[in-house]
């Protein structure tokens, strides 16, 4: 046994641990490509939380009641928190917060394309919670068992908090759907705009996703993009029916044989256009993010100066 283990390369030992479902921790040996993939995925995930605050922040001052405003504030605060959990997890892999933010601000790093769509009406806040967070949860729940320990632990925390996000969104939709006809129309109109972009959140088709196989092999990912997309449709179509809304896809139909819904093809040209920076709000989102960061520079500097002054004073006293 001893001698057998000695002939395994570090890569083979690493893969054996992964296959045995033993979590990888920050100081453990790992292949460079595993480290790079994780840094890219976790930081991209963190950026999505940060940029995800922007379309909702847009509605905090216009929420229809104090209750809705409080809920929305709490949700946006959670997203800031989720971003921080994730940045911390990424930092355990050897990157820095400054580097990650620089990559986001220069446009080198990506974030979820869904946030490059505008939030035009209050019903969009319902759709963002119900559909977008619903899709995010489907992506995130399997990540609680992802092979890298700090990422998995951050995701457990995120998932615990995220379910309130989806429920409040559903409640917004339900309230609109039970309201006046004009409110229900608003809900339907928002669903029409958000349905397809939400399906795009699961990423390209498996056939066009060259990294999926490696990520599954490393147990970073547990399900493929298409598997999750199918799960999402199966989950959401009955919920839309409950609300009395129609999913904007004439091909949606229950398939008795597959025990799943058939549905139409995502517009992949649109998907790639938004990924490449040509969505409706790409420019605006990035600009808002950079502006917030630059305008906060003096706060970061002042806090450093204050800490240095206090440390100096304490040194004198001691």
């Amino acid at each position, binding site marked *: 046994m001893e001698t057998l283990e000695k002939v395994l390369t570090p890569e083979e030992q690493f893969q054996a641990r992964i296959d045995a479902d033993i979590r990888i921790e920050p100081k453990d040996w790992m292949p460079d490509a595993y480290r790079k993939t994780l840094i890219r995925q976790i930081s991209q995930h963190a950026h999505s939380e940060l940029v995800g605050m922007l379309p909702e922040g847009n509605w905090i001052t216009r929420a229809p009641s104090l209750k809705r405003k409080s809920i929305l504030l*709490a949700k946006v605060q959670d997203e800031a928190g989720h971003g*921080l959990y994730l940045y911390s997890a990424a930092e355990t892999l050897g990157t820095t917060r400054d580097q990650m933010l620089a990559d986001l601000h220069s446009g080198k790093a990506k974030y979820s394309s869904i946030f490059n769509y505008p939030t035009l009406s209050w019903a969009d806040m319902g759709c963002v919670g119900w559909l977008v967070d619903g899709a995010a949860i489907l992506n995130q729940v399997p990540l609680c068992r992802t092979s890298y320990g700090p990422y998995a632990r951050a995701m457990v925390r995120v998932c615990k*908090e995220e379910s309130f996000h989806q429920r409040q969104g559903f409640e917004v939709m339900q309230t609109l759907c039970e309201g006046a006809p004009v409110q229900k129309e608003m809900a339907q109109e928002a669903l029409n705009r958000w349905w397809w972009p939400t399906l795009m959140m699961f990423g390209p088709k498996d056939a066009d996703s060259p990294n999926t196989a490696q990520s599954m092999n490393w147990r970073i990912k547990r399900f493929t993009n298409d598997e999750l997309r199918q799960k999402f449709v199966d989950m959401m179509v009955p919920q839309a029916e409950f609300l009395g809304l129609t999913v904007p896809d004439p091909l949606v139909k229950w398939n008795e044989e597959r025990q799943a819904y058939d549905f139409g093809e995502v517009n992949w040209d649109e998907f790639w256009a938004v990924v490449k920076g040509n969505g409706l709000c790409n420019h605006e989102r990035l600009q808002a993010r950079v502006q917030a960061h630059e305008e906060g520079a003096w706060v970061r500097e002042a*806090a450093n100066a204050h800490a240095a002054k206090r440390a100096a004073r304490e040194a004198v006293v001691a």
Partner: protein
Amino acid sequence: MNQSEWPLWEVFIRSKQGLDHKHVGSLHAADATMAVQNARDVYTRRLEGVSIWVVESKHIHASNPDDSEAFFDPAADKVYRHPTFYEVPNSIKHM
């Protein structure tokens, strides 16, 4: 201070009176006071804690995972340290 990034802190939270402080994650802050306040906002938004410790990450010293086999080896062959090592006759109660 020419580095713009605030130092990294590890956060430990006591979830309720009587339990240990447990590591929950890390965050950046300019000093300890700010680290405690940020830890409150980041890690206890839903009453997850009654007490917070923060330690600057650079002060944590850890065992080396590459040595862990040899390092923890002394405990591996001492099954007699566990109560299950001993056979207790069936008629003996309360042991």
